[in-house]
């Protein structure tokens, strides 16, 4: 009997929860704010769904509602991706300047 592909996706999901659990516990508490902003940025990988929706089947400029929701989702996710990674970068840069005043 063939295994439903859903089971494989579920396996990935469950294993990733465990990876997340161990990886996040090892994050130093002083970096919890950057952790939140970077998780924010990476969860916006949802943009891949938005891009598929935005590009979905049309050769002329008659956009369906589905396309339009895709476009909106793209811009929202893009705010998050750029904003999230850049603000994380900005914060982490501050942790770098450590021995400046010595």
């Amino acid at each position: 009997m063939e295994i439903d592909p859903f089971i494989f996706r579920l396996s990935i999901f469950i294993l990733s929860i465990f990876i997340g659990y161990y990886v996040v516990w090892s994050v130093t508490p002083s970096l919890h704010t950057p952790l939140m902003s970077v998780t924010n940025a990476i969860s916006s990988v949802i943009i891949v769904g938005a891009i598929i929706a935005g590009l979905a089947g049309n050769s002329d400029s008659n956009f369906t509602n589905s396309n339009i929701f895709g476009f909106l989702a793209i811009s929202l996710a893009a705010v998050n991706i750029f904003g999230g990674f850049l603000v994380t970068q900005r914060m982490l840069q501050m942790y770098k300047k450590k021995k400046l005043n010595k």
Partner: protein
Amino acid sequence: MSANLSAIFYLISGVLFILALRGLSSPETSRQGNFFGILGMTIAITVTFLSVGSFSSGLIYVLIFLLIGGLIGAFIAYKIPMTAMPELVAGFHSLVGLSAVFVAISAFLNPEAFNLGLPGDIKLASLIEMSIGAAVGAITFSGSIIAFLKLQGIMSGSPITFKGQHFFNASLLISIIVLTYLLCSTQSSNFFWIMLAVSFLIGFLLIIPIGGADMPVVISMLNSYSGWAAAGIGFTLENSALIITGALVGSSGAILSYIMCKGMNRSFFNVILGGFGATESASSGSKEQRPVKSGNAEDAAFLMKNASSVIIVPGYGMAVAQAQHALREMVDTLKKNDIKVTYAIHPVAGRMPGHMNVLLAEANVPYDEVFELEEINNDFANADVAFVIGANDVTNPSAKNDPQSPIYGMPVLDVEKCKSVLFVKRSLSPGYAGIDNDLFYKENTLMLFADAKKMTEDITKNL
């Protein structure tokens, strides 16, 4: 690009996201981690474009919207002051939630584009996954909006409660399940829209009863929700990058919520059910006027100049007063006088996890001078001066010795063990939890009634 090849690239970006979080285990590796994150995102987006292949006229719009969003995001990231990080993160969560909702709507309206079947005849599993993604996304969105408004001060931080609130919320949650069931059995789009509307309402109702001081838990929780929403959509789109990321973010937010709850010695449900701080503290009946020693900047400077070690306890008030730079200047002056200075940070200081650490880092405080509660708590007994700036409840000794206190059992900083305590505060008003702090009336406490920034600057002048 073949579906198998793109699936492998999605897997690679999922792994890069894991490395991005792994990098945050120390400040040295964190920047490399962030680079991995950006790389993973770039791969995921590029692969998506390549796998769609047929570039229709939609492409130009996709790029335009991507660019608009990107520019807005970059602008915000560049401009935002570090004190506003909690608001920013709450705002970003709401965007993840809303884009999850939008993607779910697109998939619902045009399932063919995602290989999910035909409109009105969507595969059952996909429909369930889609509904979960959309519902959690909607809850994340409206919940984060409320959190944002509360943090921004547009909405009052005090809890809003009404009779039968929990019952009402519970029945709404059940109605979502019923609506999803009806949606699956009838494929009627009406149920989809009603289900979305109810989810938006739940997010709103879930956060309004939670008070301002519990915001660290709320933000972490919404962080977790945004992850589960992404994972739900990931199942719908059969995309491993999204599933991996959703699971990572979901468990990350859950762990942060747990750490925050532990920092306040409260159960997660106690926080979620809300209402904390709504009733003015029960023990405030015995509010006799007790004598308080108050001093000025000169007194404080004198005490610190004669100390050999000083521990600084920052709190939310420091962020409000934007006093972190003034504080670091004061510390620099102290260090020039060969005084040992360290910082003690309580897990729930500020309005989000790690909030104080970022502010101190912004003010160029080296991170190896900043310590967590467990690391530094024993040092208070040997320190000469504790300088409490903008913190209150996290120093309250009644958490240790008054079983009647609402915060009894919460881990607190042993500030009172210091030889002397300097307490910068605007007035004697109780903290967010609405509890009087015995520390104010202790023999060795000197209250400095002033704005945190102004007081710190004045002390520096007097050193």
